[in-house]
């Protein structure tokens, strides 16, 4: 109720460009893992609203229905509805270099969870295997401070630090933890390197560290993204590269809309870690796929993965159709 009142008061005096936004992604995901099919219609609505001059309220939810056969490859199809709150946060832009965040936010360990996980951004349907390192829950309830240390034409330095509290509510699962991340970005070469650190402050206190390297040259539409992470029970890396064929008659041509994707990843299990979200045995996986950028914010993607593991090899086929929407929540000022 208090939040509603804040929104009402804050948005009533907003300039014309600051109308609240409803955005997000709609998708239909299909996966075949060693003969077992799964279908998943998904919607991830996001609401963003400025409040006054320095505040921003943002939230995103994940709603979907997983449909699969009862016994994997046999039996009748059954559906499981699932929903969770990815983030529900209030941001206070204190100065040009400092922003305070409070509420539920995406755990900023590494790059994938915070920057690449939305269904309308991700190139491959499945997240990299090491994503649970740093935080298996994916989101944290607590507070964060973040911002840019300085931004020059040659280099930009970003930072963040956060603290989270334990929550057992199924919609707001979170652990007591603290962490930080620092990124260096070099605009002229479009190279980014960064380092993440998280310490779990409940139960057996453990440390997780991660590092990432991204390169997206200005001259051609290549993207190279990679991460390495080391947790208490496992370590691993992923490296993903894409090349959109937009140099062939432009990005809106038949061929120019195609973006082949390749991802290589390995995880190494050091010790059993039940519930840590990582493969139970050391795993190597190679993903080959493509994204086809259809008009009107729609994307079709397909991929094939070869997975080698002492716990069992697998062939994984994925297909998905996603649509990104973005529009004002109401008319606002003209």
């Amino acid at each position, binding site marked *: 109720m208090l939040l509603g009142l804040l929104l009402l008061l804050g948005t009533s005096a907003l300039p014309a460009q600051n109308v609240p936004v409803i955005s997000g992604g709609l998708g239909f995901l299909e996966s075949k893992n060693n003969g077992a099919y799964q279908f998943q*219609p998904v919607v991830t609505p996001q609401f963003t609203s400025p409040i006054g001059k320095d505040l921003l309220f943002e939230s995103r939810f994940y709603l979907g229905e997983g449909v699969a056969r009862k016994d994997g490859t046999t039996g009748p199809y059954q559906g499981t509805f699932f929903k969770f709150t990815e983030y529900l946060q209030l941001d206070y832009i204190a100065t040009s270099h400092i922003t305070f965040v409070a509420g539920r936010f995406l755990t900023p360990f590494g790059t994938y969870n915070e920057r690449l996980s939305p269904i309308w951004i991700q190139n491959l349907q499945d997240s990299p295997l090491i994503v649970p390192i740093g935080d298996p829950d994916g989101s944290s309830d607590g507070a964060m401070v973040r911002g840019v240390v300085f931004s020059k034409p040659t280099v930009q330095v970003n930072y963040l630090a956060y603290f989270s509290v334990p929550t057992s509510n199924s919609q707001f699962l979170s652990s007591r933890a603290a962490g930080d991340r620092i990124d260096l970005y070099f605009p002229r070469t479009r190279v980014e390197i960064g380092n993440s650190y998280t310490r779990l402050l409940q139960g057996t206190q453990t440390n997780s560290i991660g590092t990432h390297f991204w390169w997206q040259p200005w001259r051609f539409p290549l993207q190279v993204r990679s991460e390495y992470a080391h947790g208490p029970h496992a370590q691993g890396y992923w490296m993903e590269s894409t090349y959109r064929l937009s140099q062939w008659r432009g990005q809106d041509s038949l061929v120019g809309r195609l973006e082949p994707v390749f991802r290589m990843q390995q995880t190494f299990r050091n010790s059993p870690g039940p519930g840590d979200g990582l493969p139970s045995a050391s795993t190597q996986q190679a993903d080959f796929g493509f994204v086809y950028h259809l008009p009107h914010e729609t994307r079709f993607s397909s991929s094939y993965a070869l997975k080698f593991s002492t716990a069992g090899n697998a062939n994984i086929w994925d297909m998905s159709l996603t649509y990104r929407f973005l529009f004002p929540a109401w008319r606002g000022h003209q």
Partner: protein
Amino acid sequence: MKITVLQIVSLTIVVLSLGSLSAQQQQALHADARKKIAASAQPMTPAAPDPGEQKFQANCGRCHTAPEQISPRIAGTVLRHMRVRASLSAEDERDILRYLAP
């Protein structure tokens, strides 16, 4: 848990209503903003004359492609979100906003 008819109907309604709402809004989009956004999706060099366009590519474009269309009415909100998410400085936010919604 078995799929209920209610769940299927609810999800279908959500999908259809969001799709139709979006289609209505897209018709009202500003033509200039459309052109600018479309141009920003092209690969470019750091020597591009518009600092806003360059900063858009250097920050927002690192994770996702530019939207095909964006209403000037929401440009400020989108930029404020990006300011937090991409740790934009106040100057970067102003430049990109000026570029998206002059």
